[in-house]
């Protein structure tokens, strides 16, 4: 399969989305990411049973926090994609890219010295 996805996306690999903590997502934005999304396995198919469900709740929590500080919770999402589903992965990447482009840059981007990071993805 030669499927492409937007090159604005940087992938950070983790053994399980259950490893994603609120602080990781916050730091992505603090360092200037315009958007971030967590890609987990399909619900009910977590190798560690509930990792992706816990991640989902943490994403929800972080979205609220981002709203409260004016960064915008809509810049952060969680997606569940089967590990074998390359086309869906590329599709979601494209959708996220479009969505974040429409939202514009991270409002604190200008305040971060010497940094112009692009869309950041956490997988």
């Amino acid at each position, binding site marked *: 399969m030669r499927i492409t996805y937007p090159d604005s996306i940087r992938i950070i690999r983790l053994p399980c989305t259950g490893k994603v903590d*609120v602080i990781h997502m916050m730091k992505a934005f603090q360092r200037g990411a315009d958007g971030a999304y967590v890609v987990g396995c399909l619900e009910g198919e977590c190798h560690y049973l509930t990792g992706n469900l816990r991640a989902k709740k943490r994403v929800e929590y972080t979205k609220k926090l981002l709203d*409260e500080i004016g960064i915008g919770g809509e810049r952060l999402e969680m997606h569940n994609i089967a590990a074998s589903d390359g086309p869906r992965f590329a599709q979601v990447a494209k959708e996220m890219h479009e969505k974040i482009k429409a939202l514009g840059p991270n409002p604190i981007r200008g305040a971060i010295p010497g940094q112009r990071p692009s869309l950041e993805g956490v997988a």
Partner: protein
Amino acid sequence: MIVAEKKPIDEIIGFVRDYRKILLVGCNECVTVCYAGGKKEVEILASALTMAFMKEGKELEVKEVTLERQCDHEYLEEIRNIIDEYDAAVSLACGVGVQFMAEKYFRTPVFPGVNTLFMGVTEERGVWAERCQGCGKCILGETAGICPISRCAKRLLNGPCGGSTKGKCEINKELDCAWQLIIDRLKELGRLEDYEELIPIKDWSTERAGGPRKVIREDLKQ
């Protein structure tokens, strides 16, 4: 443990709005266990405040520290050397810790980062519930180990009241009637006759009604 909840970020932003250098101080005990003011929460708050300031085009320098406890001189002393470098401090300990820090560091504005709620237990992951109100004269020995002062909405010493329905309290259908729990447990312990004993009127002077309390142990005091 003492159970607390994070304060809304808006409120904390309001406290520190006019400062440039702040110290965020977590506590490694109770508030860590209830996920309100431990190292992790300090990190998240630091990040959130930094971004909130950046967004307004302001700079904020945040230093994060988490002490073993904030209710003991010994640990609070650990920030003595650095506290004067900061315009203000936000303590994420319970109200006890916040006050002790404010007492100790008289010239530094100290703000609370959490709302302190009660003394309670972790019923399950993510759920904490009240168990004791520190009445100063524990009656658990008479009540099968279940505290009607903290768990009965009316603090009845000889319950239940007429509002107890199917084991639940009339103020909230989710809430167990403390007196139902007491009776059930007395039954289980084969001590139902204890229920017949009236508990006398309680001397509330050992509780908050008697003013702020203090314990002095002459044998330990220096």
